[in-house]
């Protein structure tokens, strides 16, 4: 199997490696293209907890849109707590400001007893729509995101998957 690679001319080897590099870079650029289109730093997120049940379950895949700045009460938004990198998916229950004044939001998980004031950073009692919110949920696919949860809980899976992909693309010459 690997001897087939050894018999290649250097240019052909470069071409095979290019094939693999293009798979990775195209996947990455598609993701970035979607980011640019939706104006969101993370246009697709996975639900990590059960705080929005029964609307969303752990493992659901959510599609975000960040170009609507006038978020209404009842919309479901995804935000990052200042200083932390974990996206939280909750519903807007109060809004302050809007129009020419900066929009501020209070959120709460449907399945939680209390609102998110506890979750926000120390000293923060509301979300800034333009700074903290990654986007509002416009669609979802159930369960498909569980793969991402597995990949983050078992990081060796990522390396294994990547290695397997590399092997098949570089050795395949179809």
């Amino acid at each position, binding site marked *: 199997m690997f*001897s*087939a690679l050894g*018999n*290649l*001319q250097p*240019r052909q080897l*470069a*071409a095979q490696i*290019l094939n693999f*590099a*293009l798979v*990775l*870079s*195209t996947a*990455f*650029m598609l993701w*970035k*293209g979607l*980011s*640019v289109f939706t*104006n969101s*730093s993370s246009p697709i997120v996975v639900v990590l907890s059960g705080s929005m049940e029964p609307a969303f379950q752990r493992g659901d895949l959510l599609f975000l849109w960040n170009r609507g700045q006038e978020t209404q009460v009842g919309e479901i938004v995804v935000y990052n707590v200042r200083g932390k990198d974990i996206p939280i998916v909750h519903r807007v229950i109060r809004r302050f400001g809007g129009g020419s004044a900066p929009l501020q939001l209070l959120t709460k998980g449907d399945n939680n007893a209390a609102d998110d004031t506890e979750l926000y950073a120390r000293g923060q009692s509301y979300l800034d729509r333009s700074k903290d919110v990654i986007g509002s949920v416009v669609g979802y696919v159930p369960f498909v995101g569980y793969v991402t949860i597995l990949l983050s809980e078992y990081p060796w899976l990522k390396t294994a998957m990547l290695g397997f992909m590399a092997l098949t693309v570089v050795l395949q*010459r*179809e």
Partner: protein
Amino acid sequence: MGDTKISPHSLAELKNTTDDALGNYLRGLKFEQDNTKLDVRLAIGYASVVIAAATFAADYKLGWEATKTWTAVAVVAYALLNGAFTYWMWAVEKGCVFDGVREGKKISVASKTKKHDPTYYLTVSSANSGSKQITAPFTTWFTADGYFVAKPFQQWLASSVEAIGNADSKNALRDERDEIASPSPEVELTPQGNGTAEASGTDGKAKGSKRSKRKG
């Protein structure tokens, strides 16, 4: 080339092994390979990979907000380069396996296969004789268990393509060919008494005995 065994049921492997052997054979016959088409493809491809890598690095270091505009530009540039890449492969390279020059004469060889058809289709364009398509079943140079045998492949190429035959007279079976039908009017054919002429050059059963050209 070595004695690598491939799966004789995989059309892709048959074609790729044959393509590689063709390149090796022609380079061995001192055909100077012209790598321009492949080089352009590699240049376009790696340029787009570099753009993607730069975007990744910028995003990693500076975050989303700061790099939004650059990312938008990079995505468009990447899409254009990839389009050019695909176009180059589809329209310009078009199955080319060898582009070369020998003694001032250019030769260009492109290969293709058709689905579920174990035949090798070769389109050869050379400087003086235009474009010509030659075909042969893969069984001509592959054994039933998947070993590539160079001799019948080289004989097929040398006898079917003038430019290759000129470079490799041993495999060109010129004596046999001239017995049947000489291509140029200068060589006189003398009638054979016992009609032992072989049927075709792709047979590969070249007799060891030398045939002397009898001139009238």
